[in-house]
Structures are given as structure tokens and as C-alpha cells.
């Protein structure tokens, strides 16, 4: 389930990226044409372009390009405004003028210590704090020390991390990405 969700998000990200690239390319091409026209106004290519743009189909092309750029700009702006703000620290509790903030490093250490009770080692934790939502995205990379069922382990770890983050730090877990690797006998072990 988690993997499917991740794949969907990756496809979405690729779709946004390519649309923005295409939009930027169009803008750059239009800008380049205008600059070249300013330097070489008599060039035959520009005469041909203007003649083409004055036709019915040319007018529709201009309109289509304009609509595409406006839609892209609106989508880009909405995505930029609505996406969560990530910061190195986050306010987890407020009481009038008083507040308590927590560093990203502290949250990472908390998750790392939480995972210490599982059959894992070489645990690396990366946390992204979404400060305007009081949520966190967590990425865990670890090596399996036992032949545990990864699906069961994934579900247990997700529940524990979610509960501990909420109870200890008042942070909601938005997403946990768990990357488990099998143990190889010559691998160095770091103990939590």
C-alpha cells in the first residue's frame, strides 16, 4: 500500500516537473525570438513568422500558448502556496506568549531511539518537518538483523513511530518511508 502511494506521488512529481520544464522552454523560446527580432527586424524568418501568426490558425496558436502559460502559472502558484513549509525546527506547543520548539535533529534522534527495540541496525533516520501542519515525513534506512517478515515489521514500526511522535513530541506522522536492507556478513554494525 505504502509503496503504491509512493509510486503515485513519484509519477505526479514527474508530471509536474515536465509540465513546468515545457512551460519554461516555451517562455525561453518566445523570449529568444523577441530578442532576435529586436536585433534583426528585417530577417525573412521573422516576416514569415508574423505572416503565419496573422493567419486564423496562427491566431489560435497564440491564444493556445497564452492559455497554456496562464494555466501553468496558476497551477504552479497554487502548488507553491499550498505545499507544506519545511523547516529545520518546528513549534510543537504554544501557551499564550510561551512556546516550545524542537529541532529536526532532535526528532530524528527520537525516531532512531524508538527503532532501537526492533531487529534492525545501522539505522539512519531523515525527518522533514512540515511546520505549518505540525506534521513530519520520516525516511528510515536500516538493515534487518533477523529474518523478520518485512510487511509485519513495516506495519509495527509505522504504528510505533506514529504513537511515539504524537505522545512524546506532539507531532503527527504524515508519511513513513521505510527502506530495509538484508544483512550481509561483512557489514559493519552501528548500535543504537
Amino acid at each position, binding site marked *: 500500500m505504502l509503496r503504491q502511494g509512493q509510486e503515485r506521488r513519484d509519477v505526479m512529481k514527474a508530471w509536474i516537473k515536465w509540465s513546468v520544464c515545457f512551460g519554461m522552454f516555451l517562455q525561453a523560446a518566445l523570449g529568444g525570438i523577441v530578442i532576435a527580432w529586436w536585433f534583426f527586424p528585417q530577417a525573412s524568418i521573422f516576416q514569415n513568422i508574423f505572416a503565419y501568426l496573422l493567419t486564423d490558425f496562427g491566431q489560435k496558436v497564440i491564444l493556445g500558448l497564452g492559455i497554456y502559460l496562464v494555466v501553468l502559472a496558476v497551477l504552479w502558484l497554487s502548488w507553491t502556496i499550498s505545499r507544506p513549509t519545511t523547516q529545520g525546527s518546528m513549534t510543537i506547543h504554544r501557551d499564550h506568549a510561551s512556546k*516550545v520548539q524542537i529541532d529536526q535533529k532532535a526528532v530524528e534522534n527520537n525516531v532512531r531511539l524508538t527503532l532501537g527495540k526492533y531487529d534492525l541496525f545501522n539505522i539512519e533516520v531523515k525527518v522533514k518537518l512540515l511546520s505549518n501542519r505540525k506534521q513530519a515525513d520520516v525516511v528510515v534506512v536500516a538493515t534487518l538483523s533477523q529474518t523478520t517478515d518485512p510487511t509485519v515489521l513495516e506495519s509495527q514500526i509505522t504504528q510505533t513511530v506514529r504513537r511515539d511522535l504524537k505522545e512524546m513530541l506532539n507531532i503527527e506522522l504524515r508519511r513513513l518511508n521505510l527502506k530495509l536492507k538484508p544483512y550481509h556478513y561483512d557489514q559493519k554494525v552501528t548500535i543504537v
Partner: protein
Amino acid sequence: MEKEKLEQKLTFDDQVIEKIAGITANQVPGIISLDGNMFSEFTDKLTQGTDKTKGIEAEVGEKQVAIKMDATIEYGKSAETIFEEVSSRVQKALREMTGLNLVKFEMHINDVKTKEELQQDNK
């Protein structure tokens, strides 16, 4: 003959407030250490850890005080509970000892550790 009126004023240095807050906060369960910036950490090493104002910044007025504190908390304890406890104890200590009112208290948690980790760090 009318008795001459004595003009009285009691003021506190920022460091006094920081020291009271530091000693009080260190007694709260769940606070592992109060951490300062690079300069105060260096000073702390030179003074063999006797700097009680480390990691605390106080802004002192005539009647009120605001405090900022950088702390490492113990793994397994609720950050919110520790914050409420430190805030109320520091407020009580300041009121009793100085008569000043704590109006703003900001705690910044920069690490979460177990007691064993702290012992290892101090070796």
C-alpha cells in the same frame, strides 16, 4: 519633623535571572542538559561545567521577565509536559526570589537523548 522618604529600587542583572532559571530547570525530570551556543560550550569546558546560565537567555524588565532556553530532553518523556513543568517551576522560583513575573518562556529542544547517551558523551 517629617521623615525623609527613601527612594528604593531593586534591580537584577540578566545573569541572576538566567542562573535561577538554569538551576530550577536542571531539577526538572526529563531535562537532560541545557545547551548553549559554541562560545558558551567552550566556556563551559574551561569552567568545568559550572556555568549555570548555559543555554539560557533572559530579558529583564522592572516587573517582568522573558526567558529563552535551549535544552536536550530525555527520550521517552513528553516534551509538552516537560515544558509545562519547567515553565511553572521557573515562574514560581522567579516570583519567590525576585518578585518578577515570567511573561514569556520559549524552550528550544535541540536534541533527544537517553541518560546512557549523555553519560557516554561526558566520558
